[in-house]
């Protein structure tokens, strides 16, 4: 929200003419998006519109058939997911992907893995630089625990937590990467109103406090229109609208895609 008023905000993520086919299915067709730095950018659309596929191409899980993806003006189209993580991309999943048997703390520490440099042996001995490194990372994880109010759950196995809390832990793990670009795939799906409000609060806080650029896929229109700086609409793999929430809401093509055409 903060960056909306700033003039000529830098482009954080540029998606340029990207397409992806699975066999005969055209999942994404020639989609281009410019995500300005420091904004909350939402991608909406009916089921099967290609939103998650697009997100997967940004995180590096899929490679586009054509087109390119630029992070901070740097072409990352052919980079592997782990390399992209090091460049500052983190994500959460539609279906929670935590290590069920590990504690909240351990799950978050795993998120720091991309920043750890000690070798297996040094880590095992927990001596010298490896120990100092662990302390630094633990400190950062504790800050996230504090930020997301997870202190009372620190030692709880992630698998034992309620659904809404697991979603929050997942957000925490993504934050542990220290991302500059955060991809959230339906972070509020399946939540009740209270849990949704809490999650919205955290998403806004992350954006405000850390200045993280956020790309959000979400079905709850109320939430999307409330918190997004920009909204893009996908339908059957194609971008059909893009702009500030009010403009998108009023766009006839969008209304048609969502509610069916208005035949008079």
């Amino acid at each position: 929200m903060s960056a909306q008023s700033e003039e000529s905000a830098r482009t954080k993520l540029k998606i340029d003419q990207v397409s992806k086919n699975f066999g005969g299915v055209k999942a994404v067709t020639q989609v281009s998006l410019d995500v300005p730095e420091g904004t909350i950018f939402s991608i909406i659309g009916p089921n099967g519109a290609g939103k998650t596929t697009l997100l997967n191409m940004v995180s590096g899980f899929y490679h586009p058939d054509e087109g390119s993806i630029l992070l901070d003006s740097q072409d990352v189209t052919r980079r592997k997911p782990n390399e992209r993580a090091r460049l500052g991309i983190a994500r959460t999943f539609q279906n929670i992907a935590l290590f069920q048997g590990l504690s909240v703390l351990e799950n978050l520490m795993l998120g720091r893995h991309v920043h750890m440099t000690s070798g297996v042996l040094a880590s095992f001995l927990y001596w010298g630089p490896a120990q100092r490194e662990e302390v630094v990372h633990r400190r950062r994880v504790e800050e996230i625990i504090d930020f997301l109010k997870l202190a009372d759950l620190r030692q709880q196995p992630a698998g034992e937590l309620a659904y809404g809390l697991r979603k929050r832990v997942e957000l925490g793990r993504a934050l542990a990467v220290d991302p500059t670009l955060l991809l959230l795939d339906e972070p509020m799906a399946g939540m009740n109103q209270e849990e949704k409000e809490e999650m919205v609060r955290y998403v806004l806080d992350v954006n405000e406090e850390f200045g993280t650029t956020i790309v959000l896929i979400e079905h709850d229109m109320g939430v999307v229109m409330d918190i997004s700086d920009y909204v893009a609409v996908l339908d059957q793999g194609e971008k059909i609208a893009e702009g500030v929430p009010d403009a998108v809401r009023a766009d006839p093509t969008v209304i048609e895609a969502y509610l069916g055409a208005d035949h008079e």
Partner: protein
Amino acid sequence: MAEPSTIPGYLLRNAADPNFSDQPAMREKSFGIWETYDWQSYVENVRSFSLGLADLGFAADDKLAVIGNNRPRLYWAQLSAMCLGGQSVPVYQDAIASELSYVLAHSEASVIVVEDQEQVDKVLSIRDELPNLKWLIYDYSRGLASYDVDILKSYEEVQTLGRAFAEGNPNYLENEIAKISADSFALIAYTSGTTGQPKGVILSHENLIETARIFIAAEDVRKTDDFLSYLPMAWVGDALYGLCVSIMVGASCNCPEEPETIQRDLRELGPTGIVAAPRVWEGILSSLQVRAEDSTPLKKLAFNYFRGVADAVEQTKLEGKPLPLFLKIKQQIGEFMVYGPVRDQLGLRRARWCYTGGAPLGPDTFRFFRGFGINLKQVYGMTESTGLVSLQTSETANPDTVGEPCQGIDVSIAKERSEVLIRSKGIFKGYYKQDDKTREAIDAEGWFHTGDAGMIDERGHLVIVDRAKDVGKLSDGTVFAPQFIELKLKYSPYINEAVAFGDGQAFVSTMIAIDLEAVGKWAEKGRLPYTNYMDLAQKSEVRALIAEEIRQINLGLPEVQRIKRFLLLTKDLDADDNEVTRTRKLRRAYIMEKYAPVLNAFYGGGTAVELKLDVTFEDGSRSQIDSHLVIEEAA
């Protein structure tokens, strides 16, 4: 060196005296690690903050309010106000804006120190009602970066100002401290008040120091002790047991990370002494029972069996009989198998003494803890007596009395309504800006009228029956003390709050608020789906569950006092709705008025009540819920 006569005096002593300086003074868990402050850094923090305050214009007799959980910086802020000859006004952190506005406006606080954004928002929302407010200072900066408010300052900023101020004004703090005396006012503690608006109780340095001295003389308090600071800061007990006792003996005071992490923090810390509200003990017991229910059948069996043994032991002790050998052996086995491990799990293994105070604790809860080898005792006191009147010794602890009045505190029982009267050096200096109320409370001979009905038993122990005005009679003339029945009910893990009616009636009836966690678990186990508190409380299965609990409780009550009718409330009693005080005492008069239809149905033979209830949300907004409450007959 003579004993200091003011609290800041003790602080300076601790920093200067090598006997104290190597001791931990305060610990705070932050970012998952216990951080320790010794007395030098403690005093340094108070020094820089109070000089910062001085730079901002805070002077003698100004008021500084603190709102938040137990945090070192909020303690230091209170002490800083005292150092400059001002008064600290601790306020309940969960108070809603309208309550807050009364206390903050009435106390004329010029500086408010709060914990976080939530409290900042609350204060800013009522800023128009606080003409005296000059500075609002926050401890935790999260979410406040974009705030552009002229009166807002961070704690660090004030400390930085203070360090700069120190350069130009050497010995400023020492000079200010030298100006205050034992008679100076230190604290204005607002009583939660079961009737009417809160009253500001003024306590002097002498009140606090003399009362702490009485406690230290009566209880085994050591310099090496670790206290857990978990009383609400607004409660006088926190100022006395947390702050004063710790500073005077040099023991350390430990702040938990968050209210939610208390159980784990307790275990990590293993405090040697605790003073906590009955609510905390009830909470520990409830969660213990739930955990026992959840464990393996063998563990459950052991827990329940040895719980019975513990109960039998306590019962025998209470009757003053020697323990039969067989029971003694069983107790020893229980100590090894159950009691010791449970104490360890709870973090109470090192605790030499635990106190419950502020409101009565149910006798069964009390006996449970003692049976498990936890030295739980009652302390009786009120804000006006600086939080102390009587204590139980470890040998005489029992649930029926509040112990012997402490040395140096005179107690007598008035003829009229057997009201408890108190005279001591701890009796307060008056209600702030309410001299008429002060004259009502303290008579010409200096006796403070507590409003509690009580008696002194044959051993010289003080017994508190109830609030003097609450004790009534059933229509056949039997004395009816509602609290007695309510405490019995609250021992059930499934019952969170209870209100007993019966004054002037033929029988006793009760309204019950279920315990969401315990009943929720029970429902999950029985595969009974529910959505929220209201839904759960309206299930006939839950009513049957509570009916069975009441049947059990009735067995332990005299025939005439047995509960005949009850209903389950669709919401818990809440301080935000004015039904209970912040220390969770029932505001009986208000409840009688609000739930008048329930009372009519109980005694008019109705089988159900339609009730429109006002509820207040945490942000202070209000709404109405309609409930259909079914009345059950108890067996």
